[in-house]
């Protein structure tokens, strides 16, 4: 089972690396994205001498980690499911000896593998241009990785839910943008969540998206420590379960309606 998953994942990475330039360009994209953030915050820091709760090095590291983590938190199989529904490949994929969910999870792992490659390249290149802080200690780094690993199923099931909408509408790409925007707003991607209004933070605390950026980066910087991390992992496990049930129920309901244009 695991072997099959990894094989599917490997295939996905290979597909990407067919064009070596892709990795270079995706990394370039990440760097271009971080430039504005960093220069804006440096300008604010030079003017006011402080940013609430963050040293200038910390805020630069925060945003570099944000763009580094984007490939793993926002990318994924995305349109693949909607595409498989629209083109009718789904009829074949449902007959696969492994379940549809498992098959696409393998594909998701491939995407994550390529995302990880891009992330590592981005992180290294950013180190050339700016001073990036290292994790405060080895335990913080291990916790950082654990949180990121638990994000994979949450992000995957969420994409499954959005992809399943493909049974009802052809305009799923809009749903994808909706998904990305909501994650961007509630995850701390735009700015550390402590800078948002309190009411907003309360909503963000309940949703699972905070763990995509804000929480792991703060653990990395040593601002979240100890027992709190265990609570966060508990919260993530609950969300994995919720997302799994939602995705399964929705998919099983939708798949009964299957009618494919000329499939």
């Amino acid at each position, binding site marked *: 089972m695991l072997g099959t998953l990894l094989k599917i994942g490997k295939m996905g990475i290979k597909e990407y690396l067919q064009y070596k330039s892709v990795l270079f360009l995706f990394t370039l994209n990440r760097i271009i994205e971080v430039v504005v953030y960093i220069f804006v915050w440096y300008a604010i820091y030079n003017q006011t001498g402080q940013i609430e709760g963050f040293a200038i090095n910390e805020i630069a590291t925060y945003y570099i980690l944000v763009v580094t983590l984007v490939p793993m938190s926002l990318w994924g199989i995305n349109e693949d499911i909607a595409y498989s529904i629209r083109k009718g490949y789904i009829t074949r994929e449902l007959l696969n000896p492994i379940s549809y969910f498992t098959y696409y999870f393998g594909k998701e792992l491939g995407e994550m593998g390529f995302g990880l490659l891009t992330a590592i390249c981005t992180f290294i290149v950013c180190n050339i241009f700016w001073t990036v802080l290292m994790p405060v200690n080895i335990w913080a780094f291990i916790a950082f990785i654990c949180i990121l690993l638990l994000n994979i199923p949450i992000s995957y099931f969420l994409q499954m839910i959005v992809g399943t909408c493909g049974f009802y509408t052809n*305009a799923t790409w809009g749903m994808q943008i909706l998904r990305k925007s909501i994650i961007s707003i509630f995850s701390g991607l*735009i700015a550390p969540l402590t800078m*948002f209004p309190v009411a907003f933070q309360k909503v963000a605390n309940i949703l699972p998206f905070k763990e995509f950026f804000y929480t792991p980066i703060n653990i990395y910087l040593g601002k979240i420590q100890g027992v709190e991390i265990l609570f966060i992992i508990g919260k993530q496990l609950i969300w994995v379960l919720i997302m799994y049930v939602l995705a399964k129920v929705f998919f099983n309901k939708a798949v009964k309606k299957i009618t494919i244009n000329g499939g």
Partner: protein
Amino acid sequence: MTKIKDNISIYLSMLSCSIKSMMEYRVDFIVGIISQLLTQAVELIFIWIIFQNTQSLAGWTFDKLLLLYGITMLTIAIVDFLFDSIYDIGPKYIKDGDFDKLLLRPIHPLISVIGDTKTFTAFGYMAISLILIISMLIKLQIDITFMLVAKIIIFAFSGALIIGAIMIALSVTSFYTYKSNEIIWSVFRIYTFAQYPVEIYNKFIRILITFIFPFVFATYYPTLNYLGMENGWLMYLSPIVAIIFLIIAVKIWNWGLNKYRSTGN
């Protein structure tokens, strides 16, 4: 000269065709606009956060920065509307072999490509930018005269031509790699640099967005002019930059076209 005129008139009729076909898919149209509004919301939240931490950014207040943002969005909307199909040259036309069909037409293939643009996201950008521009002009107590409106429209178009020229020039890469969208997208994203005062950047980035990819002429200098700030006169160089870059871009494109080999589908 008549050849250029013919090309332009054919282009215009193709454009009106694509608008009609866009309107056919109503759900896609609405979803497209809603998703565009959300993407904008994300960027506006960042600007809002900036001003929770400071009174002004390199001398720019919140209102002024929003005006710059609005002007940028208006230009981007026009770029989106006119040049979006440049992204398709590699993945759609060349990879599928459709490009050979275009070569047989009696008009320049570049016209065929950009005439085929079908993007409804542009309307979302347009709506947001107009709301922002008008409300910020009122808030900043700038008189909305006929002159100003004319300037905003003309220079938004000239800015869009600059960005379009850069996209055309970069799309030559698709003749070699059969996929061009990533490199165009990467450079296109640099426009976001010009959404903030150039004073915050270091020398390298200033040179990059002034001389190599002159996004500052597209959006930043025009905004300086509307606000009556220093260096606002540089806006008037924008149409010249646009023409120069367009000529270079078409030259590069024609040169790339000569090297083009069909994928053999």
